[in-house]
């Protein structure tokens, strides 16, 4: 449905949501309401930030990882999603090991907690189509409609804006404005291009707004071309997440590993 606008530019990794969302028979997690996935991911973050031990987070992570199988992602897509997560977890584990006060255990706890919060968050993102997300936010979470539609429309301009970025670079090269190996000049060229892109963006936005005005955008009550449905499975997803968090905390408490977030490590 939204295939053309999702076409990635060559420099971008292919948005993994595309195939998962567009497949005829969609994976379970891709069919879930984006609002439910957003709530579940936020719930995990709220539930795990107050604890720093690896056990509580580890239980949640162990339960979240199999969900990747329900995401419809395969092979290379899964690697493209998972690899940055592992790199980030390793980096965070490392800075906690190097600068932290709690050595290996603290570093492990930080890395596991990072993954336990990030995995549901990333799964929610890659399995949600932007259009369905906007529909769900407006119809289920009562987000104001005009700004939601405007952001959705603007996100559709990502390929256009990245193409303009390349055009700006080509134009500068044609004029002999190249940085070469000088990082300061590279920064100057980068900022110049960024400013030119912002000018283009404001003008594009002005034109887009005019086009939307001619179609009477936002002048009266709107109907919904697509209904965002909340199914029983969505309730189960949110309730299950809450139950999982409670169970993780209880198990960790029972095992004596539970450790709350303390100020200064």
């Amino acid at each position, binding site marked *: 449905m939204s295939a053309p606008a999702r076409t990635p530019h060559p420099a971008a*990794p292919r948005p993994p949501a595309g195939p998962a969302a567009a497949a005829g028979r969609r994976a379970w997690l891709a069919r879930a309401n984006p609002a439910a996935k957003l709530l579940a991911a936020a719930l995990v973050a709220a539930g795990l930030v107050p604890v720093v031990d690896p056990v509580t987070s580890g239980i949640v992570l162990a339960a979240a990882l199999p969900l990747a199988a329900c995401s419809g992602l395969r092979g290379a897509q899964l690697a493209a999603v998972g690899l940055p997560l592992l790199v980030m977890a390793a980096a965070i584990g490392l800075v906690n090991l190097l600068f932290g006060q709690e050595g290996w255990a603290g570093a492990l*706890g930080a890395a596991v907690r990072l993954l336990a919060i990030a995995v549901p968050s990333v799964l929610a993102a890659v399995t949600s189509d932007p259009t369905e997300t906007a529909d769900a936010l407006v119809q289920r979470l009562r987000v104001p409609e005009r700004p939601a539609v405007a952001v959705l429309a603007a996100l559709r301009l990502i390929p256009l804006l*990245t193409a303009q970025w390349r055009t700006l670079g080509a134009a500068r090269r044609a004029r002999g404005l190249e940085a070469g190996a000088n990082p300061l000049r590279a920064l100057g060229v980068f900022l110049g291009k960024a400013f030119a892109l912002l000018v283009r963006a404001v003008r594009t*936005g002005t034109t887009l707004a005019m086009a939307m005005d001619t179609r009477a955008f936002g002048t009266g009550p709107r109907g919904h071309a697509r209904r965002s449905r909340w199914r029983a499975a969505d309730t189960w997803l949110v309730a299950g997440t809450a139950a999982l968090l409670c169970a993780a905390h209880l198990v960790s408490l029972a095992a004596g590993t539970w450790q709350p977030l303390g100020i200064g490590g």
Partner: protein
Amino acid sequence: MQEHEPQTHPSPRAPLRYRTVDIVVPAVLGVAVGVVFWLWNMLWTVTTPVFAFFPPAQALIYGMWLLPGVLGGLIVRKPGIAVLTSTAAAAVSMVLGGPWGVEIVLAGFVQGLLSELVFAAARYRRWGTPTAVLAAAAGGLAPAIWDNVRYYVTWPLSHQIAFGVIVVISAALIGGVGARLLTSALARAGALAPFPSARR
């Protein structure tokens, strides 16, 4: 929409109305900044894995992420626009993929909301450098606290405070002063004609 008088000088009591352009331009602007972020992220990821070893360096450039909300607010000068622009910029990072997922959109929303509070405290009437700096610094409070409890949990308090302070200062400078200068430059480039910020 019937807007005979462009709202260049909104009287304080005028009912709050959002023209389409008031909503769409900040959304597109936010996405454009988000695209630049994304290239910026790639640049840093490719050139400096050093950040993992020396996080204060990352705190120094953190202010860049606080820029869109303040920029949107300064340009459109209406309530809610800082939240909108900041959220739109963060949404790009989610849509293009990365290790953050929906969490980053929530972060962008909260950062925009904190900047919005400063604009609200200024009653949406003051748009100078002090307001911009305060708005960006307020937005910077979110990562100053959140990143410490989310990522740098085992650090000693002194490190955490140092990180937070550097983030807020960076936000004030890059996000606040930067957004103010950018708004003036965009106005000089003639891009802001539909908005009150076209004239100082």
